[in-house]
């Protein structure tokens, strides 16, 4: 059988870290509103971008993601990566969505 490299307590710790990060973002968003949304810190991996669907152009980032909120989580490392999708102007032949 397949094993696991992480205990339940490790996972719980990771979840608690995530909850703490959510709280921090909530507080951060409130504070940003109070001071005019100036200088909201962003910690994004170099390969990460963020857009806001309601804004024109590539919008400013709305969320903060920290690279250590899943510290100790080595899950998924065997998931097979492929080439990144590319932009296209060709009409789509299929839809990827929930159904």
């Amino acid at each position, binding site marked *: 059988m397949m094993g696991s490299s992480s205990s339940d307590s490790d996972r719980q710790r990771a979840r608690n870290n995530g909850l703490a990060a959510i709280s921090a973002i909530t507080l951060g968003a409130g504070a940003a509103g109070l001071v005019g949304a100036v200088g909201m810190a962003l910690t994004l991996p170099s390969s990460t971008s963020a857009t806001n669907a309601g804004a024109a152009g590539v919008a400013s980032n709305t969320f903060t993601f920290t690279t250590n909120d899943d510290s100790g989580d080595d899950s998924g490392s065997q998931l097979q990566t492929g080439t990144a999708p590319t932009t296209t102007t060709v009409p*789509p*032949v299929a*839809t990827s969505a929930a159904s």
Partner: protein
Amino acid sequence: MSATSILGRPTKTATSASLHSSAWNAIGTTVRIVVADATQLGSARAMLVDDLAALDAACSRFRADSELMRLEASAGKPTMVGPLLAGAIRAALRGAQLTQGDVDPTVGRAMEAIGYDRDFATVPAQGGALRVTVRHVPQWRQIVLDEAASLLTVPAGVRLDLGATVKAWAADRSAERIARALACGVLVSLGGDIAVAGDVPPGGWSIRVQDVAGDPSAPDDGPTSIIAIHHGGLATSSTSARRWQRGGDVMHHILDPRTGRPADGLWRTVSVAAGSALDANIASTAAIIRGLRSASWLARLGLPARLVTVDGNVTTVAGWPAEVSG
């Protein structure tokens, strides 16, 4: 999946100068096949129809006569299984292992407890309040698959639900089989889990990505991205579809195995491109359940992804094209 798995009239359309498609409903979802050679469309469609009929007979939890449901009579004893069910179980266990149990095939009873106990088309949209006991569901480590002996052991009382991974796994399998047999480029979409194989059309396979399924030629429905993939697979998991209410509470089909309740996270829709539709689906489903930490998780793994928050904000990671709106 449904006993009457082939539903509706198939449509046959020329999707572009060089690509041709057929769409219909089966296994309780939308099915589409696209080929680069118009003369092969009929054969490709027939092969996929056969594949899905066999899949339904092996893996449906909504058919009392399916191989999956007949397993329950084994009451925890090792039972001989066919190669199709064995492959589907192996795919589900891969999902559980690689996500540390966030995608777990032993949620069948929990799924029934919240009302998803039949083909979704017949699940009542409204219903009375449910008495649901929150419990720690993951039991996937208790499943033993001895592939050499074709023996599967499932603990007594555990009901498997392969719905999280089986469509993507089947899309990979059929796309490869059809491309090899017909020697042409093939795209297979099963409920939005998409696998491509064979020759790549010029510019790649153009795919629209959004919350809820629709014909690719229909108007956009919510935040939408049109991208091209060249190899492997693309999957989208979303809480925007397969929703129902019990006692005023909204239910959906993506369960957190640690609570047995519908995942209640930051993201409503996550799309991932990967080396296979199966791995894309494992990652997209886990991302819905994991919530906030999913974006950094996917970025660290190098899995290109598009994540949509419950209020419609879009984030892209790991090389997924950034979206330009307005």
